[in-house]
């Protein structure tokens, strides 16, 4: 678990570089709230606190959730989300290893459903906004909800590339025009593309450490990219390229850190492939046709629900029983 946290560090560093200390504040708040909730729940359930709090699972949950939050979300939102994810999604279901849903995604989903306005207040990445917020101003905004005099939130805020594409397309704007906006850098949007690349780096580390099965991120990205590719080739005016889908939003974070969560995913090799593939498919559908800008969280939660079902029907054949099946088929 601590290795997973370590693999997140390049992503966190890049995120902070582009979006400011708000990111670190979110991570800090989430960590503290998650650990406190974890300890409290363990206490309530008469479990030993130390081995569970130190195993790092709550920290990873907190970090993943904080990374999916806008850096300038108010302090109480990330705190509430962390509490909800640990208490509601994890301990209500029986604690570590028993949860049906990915706790980080539950926390995120609850918040985006409840407070969609605040959850879409993204600050513009480095160098894009007409006015930029310094660290003090970010802290002030997160903790008090007020900006220093003379600053207007509309001026510092900006939609994410995914959101922009979606809303602009709705205004019947041509894709090429949209991509000409300065928000879009090389492939996935300024900042975003570097952050996702950093997640990719962390993910490769996890793969190298054999902490995650390679089939999951590969299938997820392949299906997401495949869907994007089909639509893009048919109509590049209204659909974005696979590269854009890979390097924007939570695609990379999801591929390596969220879809791979063992507790909430199937365990059979084929099951994992189906699971990751369907998440990729749903992510694309929600991103392009759904009501929310990014689809990873909802896709993951929906497939979490199907994990036991997928497991049930993808049981690999057991040692010795393969011959028998063949023999039976012949007979």
């Amino acid at each position, binding site marked *: 678990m601590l290795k997973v946290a370590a693999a997140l560090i390049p992503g966190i560093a890049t995120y902070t570089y582009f979006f400011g200390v708000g990111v670190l504040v979110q991570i800090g708040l989430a960590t503290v709230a998650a650990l406190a909730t974890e300890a409290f729940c363990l*206490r309530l359930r008469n479990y*030993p606190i130390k081995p569970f709090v130190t195993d790092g699972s709550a920290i990873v949950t907190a970090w993943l959730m904080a990374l999916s939050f806008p850096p300038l979300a108010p302090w109480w939102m990330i705190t509430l989300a962390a509490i909800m994810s640990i208490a509601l999604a994890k301990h209500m279901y029986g604690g570590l290893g028993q949860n049906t849903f990915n706790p980080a995604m539950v926390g995120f989903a609850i918040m985006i459903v409840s407070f969609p306005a605040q959850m879409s207040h993204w600050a513009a990445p480095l160098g894009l906004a007409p006015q930029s917020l310094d660290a003090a101003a970010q802290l002030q905004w997160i903790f008090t909800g007020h900006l220093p005099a003379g600053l207007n939130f509309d001026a510092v805020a900006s939609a994410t590339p995914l959101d922009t594409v979606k809303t602009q397309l709705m205004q019947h704007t041509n894709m090429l025009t949209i991509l000409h906006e300065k928000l879009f850098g090389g492939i996935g949007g300024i900042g975003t593309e570097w952050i996702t690349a950093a997640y990719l780096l962390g993910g490769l580390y996890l793969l190298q450490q054999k902490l995650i099965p390679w089939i999951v991120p590969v299938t997820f990205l392949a299906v997401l990219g495949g869907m994007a590719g089909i639509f893009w080739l048919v109509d590049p005016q209204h659909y974005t390229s696979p590269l854009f889908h890979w390097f924007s939003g939570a695609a990379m974070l999801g591929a390596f850190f969220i879809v791979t969560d063992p507790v909430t995913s199937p365990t059979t090799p084929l099951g994992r492939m189906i699971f990751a593939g369907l998440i990729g498919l749903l992510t694309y559908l929600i991103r392009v046709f759904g009501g929310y800008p990014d689809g990873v969280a909802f896709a993951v939660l929906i497939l979490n629900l199907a994990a036991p079902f997928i497991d049930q029907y993808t049981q690999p054949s057991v040692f010795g029983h393969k011959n028998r099946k063949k023999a039976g088929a012949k007979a």
Partner: protein
Amino acid sequence: MLLAFVLALGIMAALALLLGAVLGWAAIRYKVDEDPLVDKIDAILPQTQCGQCGFPGCKPYATAIAGDEADINRCPPGGEDGIRKLADLLGKEFKPLNAENGEEKPKSLAVVDEAVCIGCTLCVQACPVDAIVGAAKHVHTVVSSECTGCELCVAPCPVDCIDIVPVGETVTSWKWRYPVIPLTPVKVAA
């Protein structure tokens, strides 16, 4: 308006006639005669045929349960486990064993003290599963593999030569225990 009412009434009446006829016919045509419930209950009962439930054997008790004439907590050899299974099957609430019917005992066997046995055959006649062998005026023996430990042979014996001995655990009948989870719960400070 009136036409609408008449039409509605007509359609409803026609439907009623049709469905009623089909249902009435089907009720007879697809009637299930046996009561598989009795067999299901009987399968849960331990088949000791001991009669502690107040019925002459397991099947009569199963029939009584199925007919809602007897409670599910009257079988001591079945134990709590058996009551739980019956409760699950019948969708009833679990009840502790009725103390009037006896108490749960470890699995036991009848053993004839062959030095005392006079060969009266009374126990042979009492045994519900024919697990005691022996002819008149010859010493009787209990076939241990078939004895259910029902104790019905104890009372008729005129010389009290039958003992009910609990079957101890041996290496062959030993079971692996449920692994103890070394998760020690924290003591809640009072």
